[in-house]
């Protein structure tokens, strides 16, 4: 009766549309397209891009601009999720990094050194998470929960409980400046993406990550040091969160330990999953993760621009995310669209 549905994809009669719908990139891209389509009707001039005071200006640029911190965090998160882990501490790392950066700037340290030490702090946070997960064998969600709870405390301690501001041309240039009319933070993010892609996909390191996530014991037997790969993944996530922290704090020119990067872990995890990453580990996609971030950020910006009262933000976001997830689920499409197909036959 339903045997046709159970046949493996290769045995089904080929159909162009069905083939397309099975591709990994199809549904995230369709979702992004639909959101943009709605924008075209709802908000006037959403797609116009101009140059104001020597920099690119427009809603689409705004999406890219505001999306950079989430994108950086999500890229690191994608790798951690690839090892069958999760990193809840990214928001707290953003806060710690911001506090350290502000502290060092007030010590009159040269800006490049501040940047290096700040990013090292992020990596150090990641090292701590990695040691808990890989060496002490604590479940990732709990291991990173510890830093999530403690991190904002540490950041507040460094800031002595205040919101500390600073002036630094160097960090303002990185975060809010521009290069040839393009906002510099977009270039920072694009550069990070290319580096990560080269580092993980042009070497076998990405494959190591996926094999550890797929089956750590098998990877170990195949000669991959699973512990080292996991520690590396968490350090990478810490480093990416650190860079996001530099952008966020450079933007507000200060360290707000209670609010910097608050709930960014939820957006980052959503982006990874919408981009096809599996929380069961074993696969991660850097490019699709960026598409996931674009979906989330376009949605947030669209709600803002469409004039819907801000209290509706979360519920609209929840509904749209749910729809994207349902469309992305093969089972859901087979069951629901399958009914129509049978009905038509």
């Amino acid at each position, binding site marked *: 009766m339903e045997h046709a549905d159970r046949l493996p994809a290769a045995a089904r009669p080929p159909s162009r549309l069905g083939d397309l719908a099975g591709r990994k990139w199809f549904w995230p891209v369709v979702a992004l397209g639909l959101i943009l389509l709605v924008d075209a009707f709802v908000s006037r001039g959403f797609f116009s891009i101009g140059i104001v005071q020597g920099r690119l200006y427009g809603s689409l640029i705004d999406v890219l601009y505001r999306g950079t911190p989430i994108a950086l965090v999500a890229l690191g998160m994608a790798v951690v999720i690839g090892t069958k882990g*999760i990193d*809840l501490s990214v928001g707290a790392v953003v806060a710690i990094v911001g506090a350290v950066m502000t502290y060092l700037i007030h010590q009159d340290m040269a800006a490049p050194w501040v940047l290096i030490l700040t990013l090292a702090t992020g990596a150090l946070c990641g090292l701590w998470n990695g040691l808990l997960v890989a060496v*002490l*064998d*604590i*479940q990732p*969600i*709990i291991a990173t*929960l*510890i*830093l*999530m*709870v*403690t*991190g*904002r*405390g*540490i950041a*507040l*301690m460094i800031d002595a*409980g205040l919101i500390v501001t600073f002036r630094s041309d160097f960090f303002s240039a990185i975060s809010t400046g521009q290069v040839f009319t393009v906002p510099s933070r977009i270039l920072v993010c694009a550069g990070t993406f290319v580096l990560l892609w080269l580092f993980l996909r042009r070497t076998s390191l990405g494959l190591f990550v996926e094999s550890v996530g797929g089956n750590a014991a098998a990877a170990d037997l195949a000669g991959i040091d699973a512990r080292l790969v996991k520690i590396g993944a968490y350090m990478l996530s810490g480093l990416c969160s650190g860079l996001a922290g530099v952008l966020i704090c450079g933007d507000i020119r200060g360290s707000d330990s209670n609010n910097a990067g608050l709930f960014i872990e*939820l957006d980052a*995890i*959503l982006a990874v*999953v919408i981009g096809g990453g*599996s*929380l*069961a580990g074993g696969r991660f996609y850097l490019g699709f993760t960026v598409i996931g971030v674009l979906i989330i950020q376009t949605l947030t910006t669209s709600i803002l621009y469409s004039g819907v009262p801000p*209290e*509706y*933000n*979360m*519920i*609209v*976001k*929840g*509904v749209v*995310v*749910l729809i994207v*997830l*349902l469309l992305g*689920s*093969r*089972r*859901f499409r087979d*069951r629901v669209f399958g009914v129509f197909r049978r009905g038509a036959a």
Partner: protein
Amino acid sequence: MKERYLPILATVGVFVVAYAIGGVAFRNFLSTTVLGNMLTDNAFIIIAAIGTTFVILSGGIDLSVGSMIGFVGVAMARLDTLGWHPLESGLLLIAFGTLFGAFQGFIIDFCEIQPFIITLAGLFLLRGSCFMVTLDSLPIQHPFIGVFSDWHIALGGGGRLSASALVMLFMLAVAVAIAHFTRFGTNVYAIGGDRASAQLMGVPIRRTTVMIYALGGFYSALGGVVYALYTASGYPLQAVGDELDAIAAVVLGGTLLTGGVGLVAGTLFGGLIQGLITTMIDFQGSLNSWWAKIFIGILLFVFIVTQRTIMRSFMLRRAA
């Protein structure tokens, strides 16, 4: 000794030692007043965590708990202004919570989407609904609130077992009965242990998954009702992030996040360990707010490592 009792013994051991340390360090720590307050203050989170225990035992996770508690609170406060009795609105919202949980469970199984993500969407939906109900803190002014908070059983030595604590203990007993004396409970463990084998043995996966998340929704909504009665108010940002406290309570209680291993009763002690940490910080009295956060994190770390070490040493002895 059975292996399955190891984690809970480790948890209880850690709890007793920490309690004793508190008793040595602070005057009046070992009184029934402190114990009664600890049970009352943590009743809502332990109730919610009991539901989370079932979800985690089945190998899933529920992130919508904190938002559910918040939503139940604001909805009860809103219905209170419309003249509803708290018990009526409470029952309605518990029914809503159960249905919402069942809906999450259905999507998780029907669409084969990871529970982490579906319940994350649930978190957004419920928290978003909070803001639609109200943006301000609303009081619940029905006289029943006074009746509920006054009612108690004296423990002797000045301590009180409040209505909140009693509801919690009763619902814990119900949960233990469900987990260990019903076919549903056995199915939960079977699915958490090995989903594929469970399916081959004829466990109804769809029905059980829906029931598990419905139970999770039921308990977190009940936790929300208890919290609303306890604080006599609803606020849209109430209980933000409490799902993590619930999960931490379950894990500290010896249940493994991988599913299939753990006891519902352990969650009581997991929740009480967290309560113990905050009580100790209160007794210490001079900790800055940031030191309190750091201290909670450090203690969480110490508890988890201690529990692991105790369990490992037992395992090694068995293996030898």
